[in-house]
């Protein structure tokens, strides 16, 4: 009986210790330390990180969103978007002064196949019955590329116009 108690306690403590290790670490440094080993199929590089035209705008990797309440010195920082073998990881940290108030994830697309499945949801559906532009209730249109002139006449421009207040 003693052995049973010992082995159960030992296992639980071991699990807790292992998991705690992986929950710690300053998120921004953790994000920076993550291996960007191999890129998922699509991306050539996470370009917004720092190669957007110099001088024109601040580096999107370390955005500071303006706080409307002037009193608080709270800043929201987004860490670099890091490509991992399973997807993109990016954290958002709210900092007041030098103290971190809140940490959350902006992107956590996958850490294992399971997360990938949750995040990508079900396979897309194709509807092919007689569809007219009026009753299809579509949000956007995909078609062979139109020119700027072609756009003006296109369905897409009608949708855009309707959406822009």
């Amino acid at each position, binding site marked *: 009986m003693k052995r049973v108690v010992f082995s159960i306690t030992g296992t639980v403590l071991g699990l807790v210790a292992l998991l705690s290790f*992986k929950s710690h670490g300053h998120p921004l440094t953790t994000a920076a330390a993550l291996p960007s080993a191999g890129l998922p199929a699509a991306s050539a590089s996470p370009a917004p990180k720092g190669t957007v035209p110099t001088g024109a705008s601040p580096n999107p990797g370390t955005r500071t969103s303006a706080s409307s309440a002037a009193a608080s010195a709270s800043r929201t920082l987004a860490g670099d978007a890091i490509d991992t073998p399973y997807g993109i990881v990016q954290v958002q940290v709210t900092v007041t002064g030098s103290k971190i108030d809140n940490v959350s994830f902006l992107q956590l697309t996958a850490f294992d196949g*399971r997360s990938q499945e949750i995040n990508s949801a079900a396979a897309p559906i194709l509807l092919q019955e007689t569809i007219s532009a009026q009753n299809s209730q579509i949000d956007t249109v995909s078609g062979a590329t139109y020119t700027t002139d072609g756009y003006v006449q296109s369905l897409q421009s009608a949708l855009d116009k309707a959406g822009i207040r």
Partner: protein
Amino acid sequence: MTATVSRRPAPVRAPATAPLRVSSNTALWTIAIGAVAVIGLWWQDTFYVHGFGDWLTNAGRITGLLAGYAVIVLLALMARVPALERGVGTDRLARWHAMGGRYTVSLSVAHTVLIIWGYAVIAHTGIVHQTSSLLTSYPDVLMATVALGLLVAVGVVSARAARRRLSYETWHFVHLYTYLAIALAFSHQFSTGADFMHNPKARMLWSAMYVVVAALLIWYRVCAPIRSAVRHDLRVVGVQRESADVVSVYLSGRQLESMGAESGQFFRWRFLTRDLWWAANPYSLSAAPRPDMLRITVKMSGGHSAALLHLQPGTRVIAEGPSGGFTAARRTRRKVLLLAGGVGITPIRALFETLPTTPGDITLIYRTAKADDIVLRHELDNIARQRGAYVHYLVGPPRRGANDHLSAPKLQRLVPDLRDRDVFLCGPAPMMVAAEASLRQAGVPRRHIHLESFAF
């Protein structure tokens, strides 16, 4: 039927090279290092654990990995690898297997519960819905669930309470279903296991581990005995009744010295008669192994052992082994006490014959409940005379306290330098418990007491 061994037995030859022995410590450390490596696989696959659902899922992954590893370790322990049998000892391997088996079944159940719960929390669904989703839409999970059910069933049947009520054969038969469980559960490890899905190297190593252990099992439990049977052509040459309920069986064949048996070891014997071929029962060698003869001495206590009395000379035998760590290799001191109870005299008798010694260094104490129970007496006396060793026959029912034959004071009176001796102890379980307690009480350190328990 009297023994037909008439010529002088050939002298015992020591094996040409010391047989390979894997000690308990080596085995335990290897298992521990493997477990750390398995956890390491999870460690380097996991970047960040965030939130309750993530904690549950990752705990599920760790327990799953460990269960898959533990299952292979358990099989390896039972593969009858000679180096393990000699070094760790068959009885200890069986005990580890039993304890490890209970732990593994628990790990598997924990893994299942944690995964279902964790997935449900992350996906914000109910447990029931999540379970059915896992069963129906994840590859191979249904098979793994059946495997879990089998494992739990085997675990229940193996519990001590159940084992007492079941015959050995039934228990053994149900136990074989673990092979099926392992086969069923294997595929889900790769198709849904986060640490394997995208990691071909891990899959390769894991598969290699399974393949190696499978190979060991097949080689040592199937091929080696067949090979040995062909090579040695072991047959019964004679049967001798030693007492009312004890019989000796003499076996002979070719090149028996290459079987690698040592005094104190046992084989699992498969007598190829119509009634006995299906069982391979363990019996110790009751004399030093000779190039042309092996002998076992068996107490007739059940259908199988009783049938030995009627074995005909010429009956073929398959000997699986040798097994057991109760050998001269365990010895740590010059002076030795051999302590045998009842039928435990069998391996002790073999050790008595061959344990290297100078006159006066070995004492044998043979404890039985009745005088009629003493077997091989003339042999023991002969050996004692030839080797300058002492034999004490302690006969009578067990008594309470200091009056018992095996109490500490009595042992000390019989063997005054008890504390300076190695003790080899073998007998029925209650006798061994009492004897060990007395020895410890008399000041014999634990590491100088060597045990062989038959009930495992």
